[in-house]
């Protein structure tokens, strides 16, 4: 069969997918770019061309800068904690102990729990009057009076990060565990014969097998964390006093609560650009790691 017919046939088979993708992703993205240069409202006015006004206003606004800092904190701390906890849990699950199969199976639980259910669950746990966290800490004598974990600006973001980590570290653990199981036993045995201690063994024998899968998990989790919306919307809606407002929440407020479609679109594109830069930087990192591993 000739190559050009193969290619034509392949395009024909891809046509339905590409047509749908262009209409639900391609066109909306292009339209977001168009809207970002206008002062359009969500409903009603078409808006007129305002050039880069939206971008200038959004980038110089205190809201954006503060939100960017909040989002970065959320992403860096939650992803770092998920990586560390995930690797520790995977090292544990790779050991021999009673109930290992059951515990491995349980790790799927937080991952399978819908994000909104997870957020609701932790919202109930953090409840200022009847929450389990307040009850447990006071009954254990660690806390004098009930606190409003999600209601105080200095604890709300930390409380959110804990809830996010609980849901996501098991996924990192499962990915790391699969990588650990690929480490050949004779290599670890040989390193022990050579007198490598547990730390040296982890650093020089096990870690090289983990780096690739963990980097992929790191990239995907960081992108996710930068786009975070669901868990924050359900738990705090960005409050109290905007202390947990992330970029996606800010775009939602601008475009949908205040119905300013134009400036909302410009903000959404700024977020998209940030995520893209992150992703490209990470991709380079992954490629470099893959290059040095082989």
């Amino acid at each position, binding site marked *: 069969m000739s190559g050009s017919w*193969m*290619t034509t*046939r*392949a395009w024909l*088979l891809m046509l*339905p*997918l*590409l047509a749908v*993708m262009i209409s*639900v*992703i391609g*066109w*909306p*993205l292009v339209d977001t770019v168009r*809207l970002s240069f206008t002062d359009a409202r969500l409903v009603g006015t078409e808006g007129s061309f305002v050039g880069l006004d939206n971008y200038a206003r959004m980038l110089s606004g205190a809201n954006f800068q503060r939100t960017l800092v909040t989002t970065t904190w959320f992403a860096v701390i939650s992803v770092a904690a998920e990586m560390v906890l995930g690797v520790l849990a995977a090292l*544990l699950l790779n050991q*021999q*102990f009673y109930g290992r199969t059951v*515990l491995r*199976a*349980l*790790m*799927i*639980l937080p991952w*399978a*729990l*819908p*994000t909104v*259910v997870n957020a*609701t*669950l932790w*919202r*109930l*746990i953090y409840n200022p009057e*009847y929450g*389990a966290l307040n009850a447990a800490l006071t009954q254990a004598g660690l806390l004098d009076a009930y606190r409003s974990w999600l209601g105080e600006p200095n604890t709300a973001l930390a409380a959110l990060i804990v809830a996010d980590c609980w849901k996501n570290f098991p*996924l990192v653990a*499962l*990915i790391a565990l699969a*990588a650990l199981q690929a480490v050949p036993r004779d290599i670890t045995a040989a390193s022990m014969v050579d007198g490598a201690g547990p730390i040296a063994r982890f650093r020089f024998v096990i870690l090289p097998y983990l780096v690739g899968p963990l980097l*992929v998990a790191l990239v995907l*989790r960081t*992108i*996710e964390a930068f786009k975070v*919306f*669901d868990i924050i*919307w*359900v738990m705090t*809606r960005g409050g109290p006093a905007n202390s947990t407002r992330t970029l*996606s929440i800010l*775009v939602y407020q601008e*475009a*949908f609560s205040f119905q300013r*479609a134009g400036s*909302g679109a410009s903000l*959404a594109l700024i*977020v*998209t650009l940030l*995520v*893209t830069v992150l992703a490209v930087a990470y991709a380079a990192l992954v490629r470099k790691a893959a290059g040095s591993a082989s």
Partner: protein
Amino acid sequence: MERRSLAFTIFIHAAALLLAVVILAPVLWLFVMSISPTADLSAKPLRWWPAEVDFSRYALLLSSVENSAGAAFTASLWNSLKIAGMATIAAIALAIPAGWAVSRTPQVGWSLSMVIATYMLPPVALAVPLYMGLAYFGMLNNIFGLALVYLTILAPFTTWLMKSGFDAIPREIEASAMIDGASLFQTLRIITLPLAAPVVATSALFALLLAWDEFFYALLFTSDLRAKTLTVAIADLAGGRVSDYGLIATAGVLAALPPVLIGLVMQRALISGLTSGGVKG
């Protein structure tokens, strides 16, 4: 096998117990809340296990008496099932031919890479035009409209999974069927698709989980019982003035049940799908 000291064995078991508690405690507490009488949940000190187990909230939420909390809940449950089901079927129908084409004709692979790169896009980058477009076609607050929007999430993911699945099926099997005189579509139907059935099943399950989990678009594009999904209904309960926390917990347990069961039963397939690089978006 490496020999371990007693102290290390004890340490490993203690750590495993801690991990089990960390994983299980929040989930168990959600269930305990759902079966505790309201008085127990607001007692100080808090009762960690109800004096009397009370399953009545499950009956309440699953009843369909008009204008009750149950009617709203069951309506959103049905909406979620229909939307997730339709979006999954459509995504698989798009993914099978496209995934096969990319697998067998790498020259067109760049277009799939572009589709997959859209994973990076935050949904807020598409939300405003999608809202205006759905409004234009009268598809806001409509289960078909939301299912269509869900293809933005499901289709790239399923196509990518199907492509890796087809990669694992040798071309030679297809080639020999064609030499025996089978047409392309006969070959795909009789040879390739049955071999790819496990991948189709895994992709469909992932797609169902993604659609069941989705919240952002559902929040924006639905407004009442005609299309509101379960995730929005639960967020409404959690953020509303419901004073019975047990009822919120019950809704959470019911919404979590299908994905958790799928997760536990399909563990092996899901983990191999996850670790091959695909991660739930």
